[in-house]
Each structure stands twice: as C-alpha cells, then as structure tokens.
C-alpha cells in the first residue's frame, strides 16, 4: 500500500486541500474590509486555476502526456483565467 501512496500526487492532494481552505477563508472573510472584494476575488480565481492545473498535471497525468496534449491543457488554463478575470472585472 505504501508503494501506491508514495507519489507526487499525494503531496499535491495536500496542497489542493490547503488551497481549498484558503479560498474558502478568503470567500467567507477576506480580512480586507468591506468594499475590497475585488482583490480577494481575483486571488480566489488565480488559486482556482492553479488548482485546476495541478489536477490536470498530476491526477490526469498530463505532466507526462505528449507536448501537444499538455500544451492544449496549459492553454486552456491560461485562457480560462484570462476569461474569468476579464468577465468579472469588465462585464
């Protein structure tokens, strides 16, 4: 069982859980005061896309996938972050 659990993905799972708690704390009470939701929200989006990337690279094993497949995924992450932030700020 140790051989199955001893993998980078286990470490990534801890990071993902930690980031989830950070995002939740930022969303509930970001500590920046009323009227300062924008920086907290942008940080939450950035953390979310970072988490998406970690899931793709380590859980879906795209880190060792052919460059084209990995490139499409990396492009999706960058595009999604840009789109979310642009729509959130300018829509």
């Amino acid at each position: 069982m140790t051989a199955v659990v001893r993998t980078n993905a286990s470490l990534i799972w801890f990071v993902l859980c930690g980031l989830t708690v950070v995002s939740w704390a930022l969303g509930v009470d970001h500590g920046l005061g009323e009227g300062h939701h924008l920086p907290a929200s942008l940080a939450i989006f950035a953390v979310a896309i970072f988490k998406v990337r970690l899931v793709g690279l380590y859980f879906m094993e795209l880190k060792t996938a052919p460059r084209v497949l990995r490139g499409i995924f990396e492009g999706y992450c960058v595009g999604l972050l840009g789109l979310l932030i642009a729509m959130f700020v300018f829509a």
Partner: protein
Amino acid sequence: MTDVIGVPRSAGGADRNTSEPSPRHVPGEPGIWVLLFGDMMVFTVLFTVYLHQRGARPGLFAESQGALNRTLGATNTLVLLTSSILVVFATRALRRPELRYLARPLTLGGAAVGSCFVAIKAFEYHEKVAAGITPSTNEFFMYYFVLTGLHLAHVIIGLIVLTVLSTLAGKPEPTSTHMAFFEGGACFWHMVDLLWIVIFPLIFLVR
C-alpha cells in the same frame, strides 16, 4: 492490442508495467480527450454567460450569494479531491501486478467518497427549497441550479463510470485496452473534480 498488462511488450509499445507512466504517454484512449475538452469548453461558455449576467446585476448576485452555504461547498471540494486521489492510487495499483489486488477496493472507495458529494448536494438543495428558493426565485438562483445541477449530473455519470471501472480493476490480468479504458474513465472523474474547482469559487465565493 490486447496484450496482458505486466508482460513486457515489443518495441513501439508503451511499457505500462511500471508505477509511473512512460514519458509522453497519453492517458486513456486519445478520443476521450475530445470528449473531456469538449465538456470543459461547454462549461467555460456557461461560466462566461454567468459572469456576463452577474455584470448586469452585481447587487442582486452578491445578495443572493449570501444565502448559499459556503461551508458545504468547500466540504464538497474536499470530498471530490479525496475521491480523486483514491482513483489515482487505484490507477497506480492496477499498473503493478503485485499491487493489483488494491485497485478494486481503491476504486470502490473513490466511488463511495464521491457519492458523499451527491448526498451533500441533495441536502443543500433541500435547504434551499425549504427556504422557498427555487430556480425561478431570481436570475442568480436560476444559474446556481443550472450550473450545479449540470455538474451534479456529471458526478452521477462519473460514479457509474467508477462502478464499471471497479469491475475492470478486479481483473487479474487486464489487457492494455482495459488499462486505457480505466485511465480514460479515471480522467473523466478527475475532470468532474476540476470543473467543481472552478464552479465553487465562481458561484459561492467571488463577489
């Protein structure tokens, strides 16, 4: 290509008898990635539409968001992450003949933890309906029910996929086709996790 996993293959074939995939290995059948990226694009369009509508009525969306239970949303994220890592472990176990006996219980464990998402979501929906909140309450809740409902449908499909994968995981000598099917199904489940990682902050947190 129906050679048994664990038996060395001839030149040109990927060696899957290791704990880690070979360099430049496509997880699952290549075709599954068309489905996965297609699904991700559909959700991306929905995210864009949601943010566009939010931009038109930011006050209504922020006020309505206050009625959501953020703790349940975060709990569901942890549930899906835990389910996903169990499926990662199952995939690793399936690749190694001496650990293959762990693949089925780990896959079923992933499905059991994943089913907690459905139970929590059912409780959350019940909470809303009991408070008189439905999709017709306002625009925010229409998008809340559509986005989370569509994702919930993916979770249920994913749980069915995991159940099918558990039977594959129980095979003593899976073929490379079985392995590719298992990897593809596992990637679908991880995509369900990935989508929730965006939906949770989008609907529940940012304002």
